[in-house]
């Protein structure tokens, strides 16, 4: 751990007392979200994004079938998990990559990326659970 994260100035290395539990939790969340996302995301993009518009039946091509699917609470929870995994992966990877590209502020990038991810998840939850 360093007491200063920006470039261009000295920083003293101060050993952290005990494990960084928050960072461990963030990493554990990323590992879980990335595995779940790796398993379920390709099927959605394949069917809804490629095959559906090309004529293969898909549950979101018509209002009736889409509304019927979304009337099931389990489907809503499942789709919320789908959105959560995707947005969390984005936040985590942006958090690291932006810093690797030279942006110095670890806290600022983290707040922005995870904040936008959380906002997206709240919007998704609102649309899913207050819709028809």
């Amino acid at each position, binding site marked *: 751990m360093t007491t200063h994260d920006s470039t261009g100035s000295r920083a003293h290395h101060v050993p952290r007392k005990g494990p960084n539990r928050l960072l461990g939790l963030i990493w554990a969340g990323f590992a879980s979200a990335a595995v779940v996302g*790796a398993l379920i995301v*390709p*099927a959605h993009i394949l069917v809804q994004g490629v095959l559906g518009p090309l004529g293969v039946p*898909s*549950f979101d091509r*018509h209002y009736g079938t889409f509304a019927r699917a979304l009337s099931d609470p389990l489907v809503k929870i499942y789709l919320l998990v*789908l959105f959560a995994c995707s947005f969390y992966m984005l936040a*985590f990877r942006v958090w690291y990559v932006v810093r690797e*590209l030279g942006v110095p502020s670890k806290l600022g990038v983290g707040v922005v990326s995870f904040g936008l991810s959380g906002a997206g998840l709240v919007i998704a939850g609102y649309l899913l659970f207050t819709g028809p």
Partner: protein
Amino acid sequence: MSPLSPRDVSHAQLDGEARATASDRVSARMPAATAEPAIAYPVKQPFTWWTRRRGYLLYMLREFTAVGIAAWMLLFLVEVARMRQGAAGYQPLGGPLFVAISVVCLALALWHSYTFLSLAGLFMRIPLGDRTVSPRIIARAMFGALAVVTVAIAGLLIWGGA
């Protein structure tokens, strides 16, 4: 290998001085053997460091997969939002542009699946007696799970629209 010049020797003897290599211009510094806290020097890399090697480029592409996946999810969220307009106003996303975007996002999603599930054997430790399951077996099991889950979800999505 060329012998050390006097300049190199003087650099090597300067304990605690910054030493930069001409190849990567990365400054490294070994702390002096004192009781004071070690001084951490931030590593300065050019913005385009990831274009130097193919491995770096693939790494950045792997990180970029999250952007493609999230972008497609936002498009899906637009469809969910359109549901609020009722049966008369609902129109699913379609057309050649949407299909092209989806194909790109699908490629990124598959790249994420391939790279991350390949790593599964490294960060998953499944005890088996006094040993652990081989990472290769875990990775193969994860790819098998990907195939099964993809078929199952695709079947449900198509069945829901029939």
